[in-house]
């Protein structure tokens, strides 16, 4: 089994719902956005177009981050999910240099959202306790939710149904069908990392 995601760029309206849902689900610190939305404008007035590009860890089949990790903290599960064992990470950041998708984040100090020089709120204390400082973090397709038969938070909360999650190895799955029928493509496939996240073109 190889878990993967399809993101339909025609459906995505760039609402940042995935980004907020991810932060709420994972309780990440300021500056860390496992799921984010990149926006670009192109063309000249009046023929201007704005394109949203949702990004997250691509859970690459040939993940360069795993190869360069000196401790074995970056690992891959049998279902293809690339994750970091925070207890093994030394914070050398070699994986951040290797990842072409900017999907990894390092917290060099314990930042919080509210108050200069103030203690974090009770909510922040509660949410941040699962996050170590001095280590690299990234999206793991919400594996804690998958283990409870739930979809990743960004998929479950996408109001446009632009994200579809499933088994890429199953030719009958929704993700496989969409990739085949709607010309799904991997982001910058020429880098040879074989991402598990596919995009459906914004225009056909």
């Amino acid at each position, binding site marked *: 089994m190889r878990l993967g995601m399809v993101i339909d760029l025609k459906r995505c309206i760039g609402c940042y719902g995935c980004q907020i849902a991810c932060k709420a689900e994972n309780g990440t610190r300021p500056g860390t956005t496992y799921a984010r939305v990149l926006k*670009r404008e192109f063309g000249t007035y009046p023929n201007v177009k704005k394109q949203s590009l949702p990004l997250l860890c691509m859970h690459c089949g040939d993940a360069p981050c795993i190869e*360069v990790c000196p401790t074995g903290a970056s690992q891959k599960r049998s279902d293809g999910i690339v994750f970091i064992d925070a207890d093994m990470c030394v914070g050398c950041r070699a994986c951040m240099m290797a990842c072409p998708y900017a999907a990894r984040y390092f917290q060099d100090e314990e930042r919080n959202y509210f108050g*200069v020089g103030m203690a974090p709120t009770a909510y922040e204390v509660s949410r941040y306790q699962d996050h170590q400082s001095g280590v690299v973090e990234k999206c793991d397709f919400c594996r804690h939710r998958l283990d409870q038969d739930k979809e990743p938070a960004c998929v479950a909360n996408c109001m446009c149904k632009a994200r579809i999650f499933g088994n890429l190895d199953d030719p009958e799955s929704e993700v496989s069908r969409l990739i085949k029928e709607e010309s799904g493509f991997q982001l910058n496939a020429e880098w040879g990392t074989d991402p598990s996240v596919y995009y459906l073109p914004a225009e056909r």
Partner: protein
Amino acid sequence: MTISETRSISRQMTSQPDYLDLRRQDLNSTYRPQREWIEGRGILIVIAHFFAGIGAGAWIFSILFDYRVGEIMAVVSIGLSGLAHLAFLGRWQRFLRILARPNSSWVSRGMWGTLLYGIGALVYFLPGVRDTLMGSISLGISLFGVTLVLLCSGYVYSVSKAIPFWHTVLVPILYIAYGLRGGVALLLVAAVFGGSSLDIDTMETIKLWVLASTIVLILFYLIIANRSGGAASYSVHELVAGRISVAFYGGTIGIGILVPLALAIGREFGLAGMLTLGIIGFASLIGDFYVKYCVVKAGTYVPLGDAVGPVSPKIV
């Protein structure tokens, strides 16, 4: 309340506004500079690789010329490199874990190199060992260790597929050349300030050859990177005409190449003296640091988003 006022209040409320603004800007920019290995504590990586390079080079030439002061300086340099590496790590208490993956990670191989070098040099320095079989074995281990260190400091960058400016075999070659050059420079400085039994003329000849080779290498590296286009070309632009140009022209070219070259030519025309040699060595060391600083600082990630439409230089 205007948007700018809201943003201002938001900045005051967050504990590290500059850092977060910078990260947000980076993530939205077409050409995203790498910052983790150069800014803040990241500068320690450059310092670590500087000391590792000159330490390895100094050890090789000290052994070659049987120069005891140089051997000690090499040990100190590689020790400082190890300390800088430790200080850089987010979780330095776990540093022994780095030894776990020498089969695939150059960071791990570098750690093994440092460890082997440390063990070899320690045994080699023990009284009565130097001229024995044990001395030869420990010397062999230490030389293997420093070779690994010299290789690794370049390869940790060149394996980064995400940063095209680094993703070339020229980076390890450049790091090896500069490591050897730095080693000779360190020995020249040691000879001036530490008293010498060193063959200065031979060392100076080696220095000139390595200096010439680094000039050719830098030129070659920049031309190849510039022709690669995209992020690599952008990195070259940052070096020669962008935000790193002062460090590049001042440190790498000016102090690192032109000063040693001018003084070396001056020596041919009568500008003799140990002090001149010391200045050549010291300037070369500064240049060695700056070439590493510039290469690391110029690292730019491949742009995202080309696949979904024309990339606009405008940051949205």
